């Protein structure tokens, strides 16, 4: 019995890996086609001279949100919400933002930039990111009960926080994002 269980677990383990690779290939393909594997496009967004990155992100969010909440209402999927706190998501995100501008890539787009052949991403950026995550792992025991817990808000979504039906948030959020994208185009951004 033991060995049989073990065998079925290892064969089940292969399928998710295969799908992960497939989703990654499509994601990388789309990131490159959108231009998001390029330093100039990413830093152009942070300098507010090129709005490509926000256009990609916001159109992905509005498309994704409607489909995900539709499938959730049918009971097909469950959400996967990250917990958070003021310490994590304000301080941590500000640190991330500094690195985002200095490097000019983020973890997803640097993988894309590596595929695109950019050597500053391969030689400098990738080594830096690996080292940065390791420093966090070393400091984690000191951080986890202190700053990472400051102002904890748990694994919560806006509809749950506001205690309303999902669509009461989804519909206005979708409308606002679409209006924002129209405004970008009208302003020539």
């Amino acid at each position, binding site marked *: 019995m033991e060995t049989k269980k073990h065998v079925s677990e290892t064969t089940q383990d292969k399928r998710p890996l295969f799908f992960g690779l497939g989703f*990654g290939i499509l*994601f990388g393909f789309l990131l490159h086609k959108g231009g998001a594997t390029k330093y100039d496009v990413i830093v152009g967004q942070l300098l507010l001279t090129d709005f490509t990155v926000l256009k990609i992100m916001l159109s*992905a969010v509005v498309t*994704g949100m409607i489909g995900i909440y539709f499938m959730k209402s049918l009971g097909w999927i469950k959400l996967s919400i990250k917990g958070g706190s003021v310490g*994590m998501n304000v301080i941590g995100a500000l640190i991330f933002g500094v690195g*985002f501008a200095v490097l000019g890539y983020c973890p997803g787009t640097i993988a894309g930039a590596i595929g695109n052949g950019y050597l*500053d991403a391969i030689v400098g950026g990738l080594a830096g990111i690996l080292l940065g995550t390791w420093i966090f792992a070393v400091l984690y025991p000191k951080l986890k009960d202190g700053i990472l817990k400051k102002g904890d808000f748990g694994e919560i979504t806006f509809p749950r926080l506001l205690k309303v039906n999902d669509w009461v948030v989804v519909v206005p959020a979708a409308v606002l994002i679409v209006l924002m994208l129209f405004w970008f185009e009208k302003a020539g951004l």
Partner: protein
Amino acid sequence: METIASIFTDPRWSPYAAGIGIGLLSWLSFLISGKPIATSTSFAQTGGMIEDFITGGNAQHRPYYKKIKLKINWQWMLVVGVVIGSFLSAIISGDFHLGVWVPSLWASAFGDSALLRVPVAAAGGIILGFGARFAGGCTSGHGISGTLQLAVSSWVSAIFFFIGGIITAKFMYLVIA
């Protein structure tokens, strides 16, 4: 005239086409794998695997690596896939650039020396990797997958990613350069 083939060999698509494509991909990833698209944990796992390799198993005892588990999983393969997918798109559209050390926007402000760009990229990477794990996610995990699920932690993170990024980029290009 646009043909099906020429769409794939175009070096750039409308950002909306790419964005909607990523949104549709998120539907499939939830439906088929029950997981959102995210990338930064995989870098932390790789860092731990490297420490394990160098020290002969030291990293496994760190509480953080026990939490994220040092093994090749769905999301780790996804990051490998991103490298391959971007490579395929770049190659078929004639946009593969092996040999570029310094991006042109950087060169316009700070010069075209790789000896400056590469150490700065590495320093930026350290800050980015540390911040991504501090915030519990990056521009994909929080910025796209978390915000599209309307997660409070992800909207807060995404907004502060850009606040930190915009201030730093403006400082670099307007004050230092």
